[in-house]
């Protein structure tokens, strides 16, 4: 039936085995090996459509290969395997199963050749990522999971409306570059952007991810937003509105992260920030920009997962999740600290880390198109990333004041996972030529020109100076920051209460009047229809006959006249 085995099936099979096997050790082997088999299969997928099927008469292209698809699937599989190493000993079985199915959804989306297949895997991701959120196990995880699910199901419906519309207007479900010019294409774009955490609906990400378990948020950080980036690359390259959307996300992430106190929520906001860079790149749309978006997504998954691992270990070992409750952990958690620092440097695109060799591609693409404002805003944002994630995260968690906490460092399997990803961050930073050939377009780009390195060193190091000089203004407070989700978490209940309050007097007045009217009606009915009333009492036969004759006469007369 298949010319080849769809890679996503390896993860689905792994998930089923994980659910069935009762031995812990065997289960650990499955969760780590299944993504590796998936990775092998990914590299067997040639370019073009290789697995076809049909559903209700629609031709489906279940697996379509291509450089950018393979690149995203590769990092999803690597992430899944490394995440499994990190999680297998601590996560609940449900979470491991859900995380594998979630990753299967991401790999499935990567290779989807038509929009219907994409949609099905898209929804698989929505479902099982919700389960991963719920595995946080707390009341806030439950509530945030419900909000998360509603948002993603809504996004799915919008996407589906667009897909149906596109099918009706063009007759094709093929995945090909579109432009947002009519209702259907706009719906598709909006549906994808919801998963990318674009404004105004960014809050689901920072709401849900920090409530997941210490292992769950590692998986969550990787798949949803990056499949959205892949979908944008495949469907809307060069859609100019994305430049503005992406820039908004970049600065939204910085400002909210600067205000935040929850360790993992800082990282969640910086996902929006980093995905913003990629959205800008897709909006620029040149070959260099698409390469930049793809490369940055690849590097981002690694360093962001690394940061979430580091934060996860801290949350797991200390039971605390606020910056104000931790500090000084460098004494007893050196491995976690160093891995967190490497991740923080990579996200800040420090030279010799993966962020530098991938993010500068995006800046270079802006230069190539002569986008002066975009270029300078991205440069300012790079400084801002160093501020909110690069220094703020390690400083407040591992240094700052001495919280008196002396937790143990990470368990061995978590250390392996973190060290591996920290190694990859540096490897891609030092040898970008390992990553560049995998990018969708061939290019001749050298990130390490002395002048460029010096410019970024000045930019970043003076941001660091600003951080330490402005520390008094950055004191963490026990606060949250309102977002658009206020509208449905507070606004809607308030509106309901308000309407109930101002609606009460007229409604009760109307009810009184209705009751009064109904009372009158029953009284009069009782009067006329009662057994003593004119219509209710018993009449003699003769009187009845007379009435019937009279009525018949009126009827015949009326019939004759009209």
């Amino acid at each position, binding site marked *: 039936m298949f010319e080849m085995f769809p890679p996503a099936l390896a993860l689905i099979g792994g998930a089923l085995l994980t659910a069935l096997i009762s031995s812990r050790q065997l289960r650990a082997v499955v969760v780590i090996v299944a993504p590796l088999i998936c990775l092998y299969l990914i590299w067997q997928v040639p370019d073009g459509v290789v697995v076809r099927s049909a559903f209700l008469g629609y031709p489906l292209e279940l697996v379509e290969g291509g450089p950018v698809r393979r690149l995203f699937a590769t990092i999803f599989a690597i992430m899944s395997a490394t995440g499994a190493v990190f999680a297998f000993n601590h996560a609940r079985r449900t979470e491991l199963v859900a995380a594998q199915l979630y990753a299967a959804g991401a790999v499935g989306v990567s290779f989807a050749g038509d929009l219907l297949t994409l949609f099905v895997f898209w929804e698989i991701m929505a479902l099982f990522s919700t389960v991963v959120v719920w595995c946080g196990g707390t009341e806030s995880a439950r509530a945030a999971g419900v909000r998360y699910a509603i948002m993603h199901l809504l996004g799915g419906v919008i996407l589906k409306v667009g897909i149906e519309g596109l099918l009706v207007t063009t007759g094709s479900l093929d995945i090909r570059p579109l432009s947002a010019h009519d209702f259907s294409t706009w719906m598709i774009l909006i549906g994808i952007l919801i998963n990318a955490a674009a404004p105004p609906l960014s809050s689901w990400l920072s709401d849900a991810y920090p409530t997941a378990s210490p292992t769950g948020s590692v998986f969550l950080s990787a798949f949803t937003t990056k499949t959205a980036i892949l979908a944008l690359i495949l469907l809307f390259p060069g859609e100019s509105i994305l430049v503005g959307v992406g820039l908004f996300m970049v600065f939204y992430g*910085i*400002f909210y992260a*600067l*205000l935040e*106190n929850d360790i993992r929520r800082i990282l969640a906001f910086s996902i929006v920030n980093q995905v913003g860079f990629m959205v800008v790149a897709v909006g620029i749309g040149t070959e260099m920009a698409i390469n930049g978006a793809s490369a940055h997504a690849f590097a981002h998954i690694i360093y962001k997962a690394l940061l979430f691992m580091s934060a996860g270990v801290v949350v797991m070992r200390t039971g605390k999740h606020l910056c104000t409750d931790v500090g*000084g952990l*460098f*004494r*007893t958690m050196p491995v976690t600290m160093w891995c967190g620092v490497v991740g923080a440097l990579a996200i800040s695109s420090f030279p010799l880390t993966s962020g530098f060799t991938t993010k500068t591609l995006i800046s270079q693409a802006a*230069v190539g198109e002569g986008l*002066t404002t975009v*270029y*300078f805003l991205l*440069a*300012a944002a790079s*400084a*801002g990333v160093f*501020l909110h994630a690069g220094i703020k995260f390690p400083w407040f968690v591992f240094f700052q004041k*001495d919280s*008196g906490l*002396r937790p143990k460092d990470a368990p061995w399997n978590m250390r392996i996972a973190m060290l591996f990803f920290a190694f990859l961050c540096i490897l891609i930073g030092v040898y970008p030529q390992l990553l560049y050939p995998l990018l969708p377009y061939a290019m001749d780009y050298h990130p390490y*020109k*002395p*002048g*460029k390195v*010096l*410019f*970024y*060193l*000045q*930019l*970043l*190091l*003076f*941001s*660091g*100076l*600003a*951080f*330490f000089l*402005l520390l008094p*203004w*950055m004191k963490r*407070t*026990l*606060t*949250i*920051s*309102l*977002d658009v989700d206020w509208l449905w*978490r*507070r606004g809607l209940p308030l509106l309901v209460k308000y309407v109930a309050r101002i609606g009460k007097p007229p409604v009760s007045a109307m009810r009184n009047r209705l009751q009064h009217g109904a009372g009158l009606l029953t009284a009069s009915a009782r009067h006329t229809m009662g057994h003593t009333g004119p219509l209710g009492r018993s009449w003699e036969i003769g009187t009845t006959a007379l009435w019937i004759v009279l009525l018949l006469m009126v009827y015949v007369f009326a019939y004759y006249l009209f």
Partner: protein
Amino acid sequence: MTQPDDHWLIRPTTIRWLWIIGYSVLAITVLLQLVIPVKGYFGIDGWFGFGALFGFLSCVLMVFGAKFIGKLLKRPDDYYDV
């Protein structure tokens, strides 16, 4: 386990040295521009010390911008719980 105040990294002398080293590194990165030319793609970004100034001022703006936004948007962290 080391005592909280005993760790070499948080001794005042260490911290003073860290500041000295930090400022020296900052000065070096700016002065290096005398030797290594920075290619300005849009003219202004090739100016002497532009990266340093731009990075620093961006951060100052962002910190105070965040402070201002925080005035409007910050709420106690049990806001949604009560």
